[in-house]
């Protein structure tokens, strides 16, 4: 069956091949293992971009295929980040504390170590006790399980409530936005137990890996992210390929009809919502160790809106569209907001791209919505076979180039 799956969906194989090629290319060009053309920080940026692509395909499943415009998936992404961040921060702090206490004349008791870690972590919010939510922080397997369970359970409870009361369309979008806002506001509180607006930091340091340079760690994460993206893509491509995909696209187009065919629409929506929330959580857990810091602002509703923007610009209803959108928009955004783009002097006013990029992004998003609802992927449909892949700007890096080439082969 697997062979026929790839035979029926060659784009999946092409995508996987491009992803593998891209990963290999970055590895060869990296500082850590290769010839050093790409800086470690850019490797991290590319690794993060892969995570964003992963959450984008999840978003595409829930929005592009099932028609649920969720403005909450970046919240699940952030929750995944928080879950892994708790372990990273705890272990890292424990290493430091144990090292510093090793010189003390009297060896420390477990309680003293725990207190010292608590002091280190929660000093910024004026506390030193471990809140209950940190109960599993010392255990990596437990926190890894939470990466999946916490977003999954939240999505399950919220989705169950929302779908069973038949909240649909824009109502559902607003409700998910409210959920995201509530979560962000909750995390902003100091007594939420997750360090309030300070968030969790120092996540780029892997515990027990002090001797390994960041240039190598960044590659590990790049590989991990690429693997996760590849597996996620395979999974979602498989999910949407069969009758299940047929059902959820039916739900998107005519929910009532699917219901009268005897499918429990709520169950399907819930399944998709929870599955994508879990994928978002995993993506977040891979993203934030590369970003190094997570705070509640990352969970703000606007982040989820941007996610929708990426998917819309890339092209809804096809997984590679979401990947293109996320990679293209996030990399271009990084480029514009990093101040590397030369300002445009109009004589009476100088356009500084750091200030004006948001405006351009917002307006181009409006234009895409009105004039190109199929997004970039739609443009490539037109161009496929006739034109060589177009590159939007030369400095985008191999990531986008690789994806473009795949597009041309579609």
């Amino acid at each position, binding site marked *: 069956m697997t062979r026929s799956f790839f035979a029926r969906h060659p784009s999946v194989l092409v995508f996987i091949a491009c992803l593998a090629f891209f990963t290999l290319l970055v590895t060869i060009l990296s500082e850590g293992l290769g010839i050093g053309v790409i800086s470690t920080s850019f490797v991290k940026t590319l690794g993060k971009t892969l995570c964003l692509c992963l959450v984008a395909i999840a978003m595409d499943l829930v929005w592009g295929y099932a028609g649920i415009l969720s403005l909450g998936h970046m919240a699940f992404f952030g929750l995944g980040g928080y879950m892994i961040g708790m372990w990273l921060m705890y272990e890292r702090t424990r290493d430091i504390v144990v090292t510093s206490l090793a010189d003390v004349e009297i060896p420390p008791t477990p309680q003293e170590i725990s207190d010292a870690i608590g002091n280190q972590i929660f000093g910024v919010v004026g506390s030193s006790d471990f809140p209950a939510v940190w109960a599993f922080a010392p255990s990596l397997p437990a926190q890894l399980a939470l990466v999946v369970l916490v977003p999954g359970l939240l999505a399950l409870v919220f989705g169950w409530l929302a779908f069973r009361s038949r909240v649909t369309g824009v109502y559902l979008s607003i409700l998910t936005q409210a959920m995201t806002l509530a979560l962000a506001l909750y995390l902003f509180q100091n007594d939420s137990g997750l360090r309030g607006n300070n968030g969790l930091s120092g996540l780029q340091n892997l515990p027990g890996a002090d001797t390994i340079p960041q240039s190598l760690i960044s590659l590990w994460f790049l590989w991990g992210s690429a693997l996760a993206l590849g597996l996620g893509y395979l999974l979602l491509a498989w999910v949407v390929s069969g009758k*299940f995909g047929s*059902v959820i*696209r039916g739900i998107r187009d005519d929910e009532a*009809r699917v*219901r009268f*065919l*005897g*499918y*429990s629409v709520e169950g399907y929506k819930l399944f998709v919502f929870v599955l994508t929330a879990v994928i978002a959580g995993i993506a977040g857990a891979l993203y934030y160790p590369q970003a190094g810091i997570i705070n509640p602002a990352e969970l703000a509703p606007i982040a989820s809106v941007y996610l929708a923007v990426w998917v819309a610009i890339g092209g809804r209803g096809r997984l590679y569209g979401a990947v293109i959108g996320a990679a293209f928009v996030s990399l271009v955004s990084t480029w514009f907001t990093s101040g590397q783009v030369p300002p445009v002097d109009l004589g009476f006013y100088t356009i500084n791209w750091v200030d004006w990029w948001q405006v351009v992004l917002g307006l181009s998003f409006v234009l895409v919505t009105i004039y190109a609802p199929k997004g970039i992927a739609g443009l490539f449909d037109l161009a496929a076979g006739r034109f060589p892949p177009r590159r939007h700007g030369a400095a985008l890096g191999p990531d986008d180039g690789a994806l473009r080439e795949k597009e041309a082969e579609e």
Partner: protein
Amino acid sequence: MSTLLEVSGVSVTFDGFRAINNLSFQIGKAELRAIIGPNGAGKTTFMDIVTGKTRPDTGRVIWGDKSVSLLKMSEAQIARAGVGRKFQRPTVFEDQSVFDNLLLALKKDRGPFPVLFYRSSARDRERVEELAGEIGLADQLPRKSGELSHGQKQWLEIGMLLAQDPQLLLVDEPAAGMTLEEREHTTDLLVQAAKTRAVVVVEHDMEFVRRLNCKVTVLHEGAVLAEGGLDHVTANKDVIDVYLGR
């Protein structure tokens, strides 16, 4: 002939307007029935109640041999219990192929997980092709259903209903907007279907109803006005008043 569906004493009110008023209705296991009535008689609301879209204020809706109440079931559960519904406007999944549309409707386990792991077997594909043959779309299977003509969409929807293998088929104005030939084909489909199951057709068009040649129920202001053969009801004075008198 045993009863398949029994609706008794059902009333429903929308913002003070009584859409259905103490309505009672029965249909047997293999019966073709036409429901006619002027606009606002409650025809669509009646179907909404049977399929679970609208909850009545009072009354009972009893279904099948085991005499279960449909009122506590969701739309999807009612559909799985064997009630198929065709809407007034053709509603097929236009973005998907005719084949996919029929496969979607095929009577199978409807749960998310079985569906996720479902792969079509040769028998399923045969069944789909057979259905497509019945509705006259055998050579249209790979096409996107959005590209079909209006009549073809109507047939596809009827085909989807048949694929569901329901015991009761509720069909809302199947002949609207069809050419004469298309109507004949539709009539054949419905009459054929009614041999093995109950079929309720809601229709405005007397000519089409006459062609169906079945028992007729006349609805007016949410209640049954008359019931019987078409000639019988058209001779009924109340019916004439309602249809012509005003």
